[in-house]
């Protein structure tokens, strides 16, 4: 704890921690010293000079924003001289300033002019000079406009970009009164700016303003501002949506609330267009003679109920399955899985988690007992070492990445293991670039090095690892053959680098692991994660604060959907379905006969498609998923879906999957829902209704209940989301203490076992979540992957996400701002390969694998290794998954999206 000190400002005594910012303390206590360049999220600048005060014992005036308080400090913040000076400074500033104001933004400067009675030009002393300097306007960015004539040169945008987002895109150019802000070399649209808009949010005037929807805004006519959770990635940023005339016109980050403390990425800030897109589904549609026709809800729901019942009668309970959704709320998913289990009477419920982190989760569950991230998002800033494996975190979890960049600025060491260059490399101490699919060998090599240099944590092995030294010996024996030389031979990573990485990871006081799709989406996905966990355990880099393993989750609610039971093997709260006692407990809460709950593990996503192909699944209920883009080996999925008797798709848009539906049901988007999401650091966050649903679209959970009712198998009929959540809490021990009331002003991290529990920021501090509380080593050997290149298919294709689009792009591509940054598919190829194959940048190429082909545009880039290709998979016109395999990881059933042999031909 810091020392408390007492200071006096204008005779008022205040107590605060020693070293806190004087201006902030004053503001917190209602002493409103004016300021413009200061912002509590930024380091002090001392540029506007408005906050000058007098401090006893100091000569002259001092900018209070630059002062750290000390015991006994006596401050004069307001007297006639200071107020005269402030007025004079503002008067100066307005002489340099173009006052045109289109009422689309908050203007802190104008507010101060009012306060100092300077709105009226007659009260001003200094001639206006701004016109002399030909201040330019930079309109080149797709998302914002900068008008230098309105800029008060406060540095807040630059610091927002540097200190908050860690991007360094902005600077001043020139100097003195001619200086102004530039992006890149002076053209914002050609700079590294990725459109997060942090600068817009922190600009005190209208110098930087957003482009999308701004002309529609009148800041005085905003009807309401609603706080909710961003619908894109698994960070779960808290956003505030502005509504004017029932239209969403602006999104800003909510300051002071975790996980993002006001920060957003481009998707969170500008990705809200889709909500009120004209393409939204507004009415149920029934396929008649191959065409979709509008229908009433009664028609649609009755048909569905009849068909589902028909399938059950004809083919039995196991002939139906459901895809639940990582985009939907916990409440929706909970009702969905309950529906599958109690109405379909099986456990065939799964969703896209199978396609991303199932392997990670499987490995984590088996070795440490929990599949969720062990740490909190802010630990990404404060840990000493961060190992990032197969994780393009800057693009896929941009806000988590802001914490990392801030950490690097204060000395954190980042080690990257990734075959592909990612932007994080710029911030990294070491980048190990193993050949695709050789991670196990690399990690075993690192483990061996750690053992040989005695960097293991002996006490940890003795006390925290299952079977202690015995288990360790097994690992030691297995990894012994991975000598630095062999490891280098297999992986291509220079042995010195490998050893240095291992040492840094093991030696740092605290090390965290952020593991991503690059590790998990392989046939050896589970083994990859096993090996990294092995390394973590023998180093004891878990079970303490700022250490552990964190798989940042892709979708906004991947974490939550599994938490609340959208899983073929677990009830809500990871309670295995196989156990009879569990079934009894759940049946009791749900009010259904215990015998009606199936004990048979359900089918996973890809297995459902296979079963459909084999004629075992006849009807499918899809809520908010788009398997026709996300599934591997799409040609196979297509054939499988065509064989189904009856398909219901419930979504907010037509997708690549809706054509296979017999009935399409229009659902509510996140902005029309109340509910909760769980983000990557296990924070249960509120989702709030901002606007009404379009047309006759309905809430997902209401639709499900209605179908159950019409199937004559009614479920508990809820009338609001809060009640649903209370039932979730009653079934799910780790959320038992959470309720809407408690998360009204900020999320709570599970486990939160009771109403007085504050939530848990770090997992496993006391023990692992395994039956005996100990971590389990799972030694695994490197196995060369089946997918190999050949003469015919000489390239290995890697696929992944980019910042500007999201997942299957159903939502993201309905936003002009995002499309302006990236709206076209491409494939990256190393310059040497391009030269060898006589291919030039920008040409159209065809990628062909044994399973399918696609067309795209070639980009030559050093971001990939020779012999390897990389393609974003968001673009449905060039479906990467036409090329991928559906051979599965035997442990987790994940598909190997990351590795497909293919060839490239000129189109």
């Amino acid at each position, binding site marked *: 704890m810091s020392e408390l000190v007492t200071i006096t400002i204008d005779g008022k005594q205040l107590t605060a921690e020693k070293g806190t910012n004087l201006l902030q303390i004053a503001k917190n206590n209602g002493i409103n010293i004016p300021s413009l360049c200061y912002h509590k999220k930024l380091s002090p600048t001392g540029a506007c000079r408005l906050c000058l005060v007098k401090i006893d014992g100091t000569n002259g005036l001092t900018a209070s924003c630059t002062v750290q308080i000390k015991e006994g400090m006596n401050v004069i913040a307001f007297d006639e001289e200071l107020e005269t000076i402030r007025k004079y400074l503002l008067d100066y500033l307005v002489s340099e300033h173009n006052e045109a104001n289109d009422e689309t933004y908050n203007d802190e400067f104008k507010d101060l002019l009012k306060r100092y009675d300077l709105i009226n030009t007659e009260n001003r002393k200094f001639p206006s000079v701004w016109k002399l300097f030909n201040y330019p306007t930079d309109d080149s960015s797709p998302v914002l406009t900068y008008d230098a004539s309105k800029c008060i040169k406060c540095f807040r945008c630059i610091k927002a970009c540097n200190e908050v987002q860690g991007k360094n895109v902005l*600077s001043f150019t020139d100097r003195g009164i001619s200086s102004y802000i530039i992006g890149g070399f*002076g053209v914002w649209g050609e700079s590294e700016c990725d459109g997060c808009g942090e600068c817009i949010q922190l600009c005190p005037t209208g110098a930087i303003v957003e482009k999308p929807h701004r002309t529609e805004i009148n800041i005085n006519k905003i009807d309401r501002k609603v706080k909710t959770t961003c619908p894109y990635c698994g960070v779960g940023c808290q956003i505030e949506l502005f509504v004017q005339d029932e239209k969403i016109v602006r999104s800003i980050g909510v300051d002071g609330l975790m996980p993002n403390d006001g920060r957003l990425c481009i998707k969170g800030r500008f990705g809200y267009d889709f909500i009120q897109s004209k393409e939204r589904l507004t009415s149920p549609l029934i396929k008649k003679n191959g065409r979709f026709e509008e229908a009433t809800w009664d028609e649609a729901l009755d048909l569905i109920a009849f068909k589902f019942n028909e399938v059950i009668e004809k083919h039995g309970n196991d002939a139906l399955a459901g895809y639940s959704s990582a985009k939907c709320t916990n409440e929706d998913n909970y009702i969905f899985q309950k529906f599958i289990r109690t109405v379909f009477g099986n456990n065939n419920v799964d969703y896209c988690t199978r396609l991303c982190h199932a392997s990670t989760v499987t490995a984590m569950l088996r070795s440490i007992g929990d599949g969720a991230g062990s740490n909190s998002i802010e630990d990404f800033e404060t840990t000493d070492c961060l190992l990032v494996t197969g994780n393009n975190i800057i693009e896929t979890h941009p806000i988590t990445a802001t914490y990392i960049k801030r950490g690097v600025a204060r000395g954190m060491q980042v080690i990257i293991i990734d075959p592909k260059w990612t932007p994080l490399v710029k911030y990294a101490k070491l980048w190990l670039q193993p050949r695709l699919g050789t991670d196990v060998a690399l990690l075993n090599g690192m483990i061996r090095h750690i053992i040989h240099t005695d960097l293991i944590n002996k006490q940890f092995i003795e006390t925290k690892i299952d079977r202690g030294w015995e288990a360790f010996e097994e690992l030691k024996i297995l990894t012994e053959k991975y000598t630095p030389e062999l490891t280098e031979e297999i992986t291509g990573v220079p042995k010195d680098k490998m050893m240095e990485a291992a040492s840094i990871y093991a030696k740092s006081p605290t090390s965290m692991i952020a593991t991503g799709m690059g590790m998990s989406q392989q046939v050896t996905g589970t083994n990859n994660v096993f090996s990294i966990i092995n390394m973590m355990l023998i180093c004891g880099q878990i079970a303490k604060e700022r250490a552990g393993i964190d798989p940042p989750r892709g979708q906004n609610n991947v974490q939550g959907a599994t938490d609340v039971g959208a899983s073929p093997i677990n009830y809500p709260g990871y309670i295995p379905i196989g156990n009879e006692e569990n079934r009894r407990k759940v049946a009791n809460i749900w009010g259904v006969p215990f015998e009606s709950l199936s004990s048979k593990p359900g089918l996973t996503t890809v297995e459902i498609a296979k079963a459909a192909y084999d004629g075992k699944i006849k009807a499918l209920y899809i809520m908010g998923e788009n398997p026709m883009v996300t599934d591997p080996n799409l040609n196979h999925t297509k054939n499988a879906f065509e064989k189904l008797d009856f398909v219901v798709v419930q979504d907010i848009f037509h997708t690549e999957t809706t054509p296979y539906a017999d009935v399409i049901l229009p659902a509510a988007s996140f902005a029309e829902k109340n509910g909760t999401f769980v983000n990557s650091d296990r924070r249960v966050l509120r989702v709030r209704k901002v606007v009404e649903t379009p047309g006759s679209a309905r809430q997902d959970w209401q639709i499900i209940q209605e179908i159950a009712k019409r199937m004559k198998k009614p479920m508990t009929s809820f009338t609001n989301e809060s009640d649903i959540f209370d039932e979730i809490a009653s079934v799910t021990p780790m959320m038992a203490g959470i309720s809407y009331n408690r998360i009204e002003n900020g999320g709570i991290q599970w486990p939160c076992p009771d109403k007085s529990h504050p939530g848990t920021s770090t997992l496993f501090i006391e023990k692992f979540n395994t039956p005996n509380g100990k971590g389990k080593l799972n030694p695994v050997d490197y196995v060369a992957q089946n997918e190999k290149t050949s003469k015919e298919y000489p390239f290995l294709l890697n696929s992944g996400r980019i910042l500007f689009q999201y997942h299957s792009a159903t939502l993201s591509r309905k936003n002009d701002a995002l499309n302006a940054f990236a709206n076209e598919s491409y494939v990256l190829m190393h310059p040497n390969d391009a030269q060898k194959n006589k291919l030039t940048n920008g040409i159209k190429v065809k990628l062909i694998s044994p399973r399918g082909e696609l067309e795209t545009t070639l980009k030559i880039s050093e971001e990939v290794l020779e012999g390897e290709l990389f393609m974003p998979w968001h673009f449905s016109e060039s479906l990467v998954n036409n090329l991928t395999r559906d051979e599965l990881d035997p442990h987790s059933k994940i598909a190997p999206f990351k590795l497909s042999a293919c060839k490239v031909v000129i189109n």
Partner: protein
Amino acid sequence: MMTEEILAKYKPQKDNLIQILHEIQDAHHQQYLPEEELIKIAKYLNMSMSSIYGVTSYYTMFSTKPRGKYIIRLCESPICDMLGSDKIAIKLKEILKINFNETTSDGLFTLESSECLGLCGNKPSMMINQRTYTGLNEDIIELIINDLRNE
């Protein structure tokens, strides 16, 4: 010298930026910093484009526009100004037929002004590239320029 060679002489540390900019500018036959070169520097030093550009635009000795073979830096600081550098300026503009911050069409001369060059005496001073000139008057100026034209 090629930019790559110059970069190779320096450790990739940000504090080397200003020296690198000087060397690359000096090595360029038009004595300026083309954007392509700045991009190479940015990559090498792992800096953003704006932090490079912000620096080049802050310091008056750097230029991102092509300049002549000879850069004339006429001192306009208070002493030289008092001693008549304004008259020298007029003369220079007249013989070179250009204004300040312009380059003669033959690519030979760029006329710039400078703050105090530490050459203060009782007559104005200037520099042309690395050479210093003191004791200037209108006649001498003409001789100096002619000499350089014939060099």
